[in-house]
């Protein structure tokens, strides 16, 4: 079965094996093929993510969007290598990211959901140094200073993270991930529970990072974040993943005259 599903997409099979046409003439760097995750819970199969394929190009911010339990975090964890997929492959520049050796894996920086990213006994600078060390990096100090400055963390750089607010702790996590100079940046709900000022500063940094030509994937429920930073929206619904275009395209198509992304998104979920 083959039908046109919108600009740039073709649905190849009924079970949402989607192929994103690479219209950008950029060589795709991260290629996901037939990726799925099924859990066996008390003898029952629980499908977290149905098989999907897509290519992700660098220099754009991909936003994974969808209701709770739709499979966004599972997908992010599969991309990180923290959850093994049931089927499928993830390749980076043609090299296997799941089964390949550590040398072939791209440098991956991640801000995971919740307060699970930094050692709260260490200071901001010590955290950055520690995680860069774990990634085998040295000579990262100028980058660390740059990101601390950009995220407004300079005055806290010698403060133990346990004394920082939730928002500043999240900024530290982002500073650690960015200082790695990662080829792949994965952010799982980076603005969750943050006040508008801190959330916006995180958005601005993510937006600014587009020029670094890295793979950036963000899961979020924050519609302002999407409006400000997202280039491509990937909708998760009932374990099915579907690239649906840019925020502007979605507003134009589903907004019913309302310019707000939240209205268009709600309409899209209900449809």
């Amino acid at each position: 079965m083959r039908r046109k599903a919108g600009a740039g997409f073709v649905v190849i099979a009924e079970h949402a094996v989607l192929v994103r046409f690479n219209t950008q003439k950029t060589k795709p760097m991260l290629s996901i093929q037939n990726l799925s995750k099924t859990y066996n819970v008390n003898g029952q199969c629980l499908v977290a993510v149905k098989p999907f394929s897509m290519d992700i190009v660098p220099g754009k911010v991909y936003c994974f969007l969808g209701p709770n339990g739709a499979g966004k975090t599972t997908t992010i964890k599969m991309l990180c290598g923290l959850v093994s997929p049931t089927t499928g492959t993830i390749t980076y520049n043609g090299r296997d990211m799941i089964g390949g050796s550590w040398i072939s894996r791209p440098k991956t920086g991640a801000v995971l959901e919740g307060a699970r990213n930094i050692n709260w006994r260490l200071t901001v600078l010590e955290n950055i140094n520690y995680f860069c060390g774990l990634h085998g990096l040295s000579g990262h100090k100028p980058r660390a200073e740059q990101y601390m400055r950009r995220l407004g963390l300079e005055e806290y750089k010698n403060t133990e993270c346990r004394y920082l607010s939730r928002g500043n702790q999240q900024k530290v996590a982002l500073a650690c991930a960015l200082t790695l100079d990662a080829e792949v940046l994965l952010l799982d709900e980076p603005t969750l529970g943050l006040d508008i000022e801190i959330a916006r500063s995180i958005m601005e940094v993510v937006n600014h990072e587009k020029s670094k030509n890295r793979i950036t994937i963000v899961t979020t429920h924050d519609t302002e974040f999407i409006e400000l930073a997202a280039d491509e929206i990937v909708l998760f619904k009932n374990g099915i993943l579907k690239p649906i275009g840019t925020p502007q395209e979605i507003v134009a198509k589903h907004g019913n005259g309302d310019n707000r992304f939240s209205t268009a998104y709600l309409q899209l979920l209900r449809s």
Partner: protein
Amino acid sequence: MNAVTAGINIFKAEFISGLILTKRYWLNMAAGILNMFLFLVFIQLGIRSFGSGVSAEFMSVKMETLIIGFFSFSIIGVGMGSVTSRLSDNAATGILEQTMLSPMGVVPVLFFGALTQFVVALVLYLLLIPFSMLLCSHFFTVNILSLIFFSILLWLSSCGVGFALSALTLIYKKTQNFNNLIQFLILTLMVIPSYPFNVFSLSPVSPQVAILNKVIVYHQSVGYKWITYTILQSGAYFILGCAAFLVAEKYAKKKGILGQY
């Protein structure tokens, strides 16, 4: 970046963060050192009190056995505990998943963290044992190089056991009581006669403790075959422990239970 460079950088990161945290939580460190020291002093004072009716030669051997026994038990504790407690600590502070994102995985991170703790513990013991003996006016000669060499083997073997226990922690999450039970098994393994070679020689830490007793306490020499066997056995248990951990990690990733503590 090659494996050696990455390994050195991970060791540096672990060592520096270990030093920072030791300095930051100095009270805990100071209490730990005092604990070690008082144990050593009270072992010697206790033996003096109990041993007043026995010959000097017998008392001396007994005291050396106890001191080296305590030292061996502590090194085993460092080897096992540093891996298991580090895993639980990383889970409690919430950075377990982040450490797993390091390019070489979590095993080198845990290994170098354990190595840091071993180096610190060894240096402390090498300072505290002579000092405690000086205080209690009790002396015996120790070949320091042999002590360090066989301690490394003992640590390597117990590190393997630590990785195997951590494998269980990855899957079953709360395993503190099980780990406490293992202490009794370790105490048993320390006293079972594993020299000369018999079936007990196959168990972890036993031949390493036996060789430490023979060489350090009784000043006897052991053959190259036995030393070679102990080196290989230590390496084998370390590799087996790491393999068990990697299998558990793979299982946890498959089940999606890696970070749930």
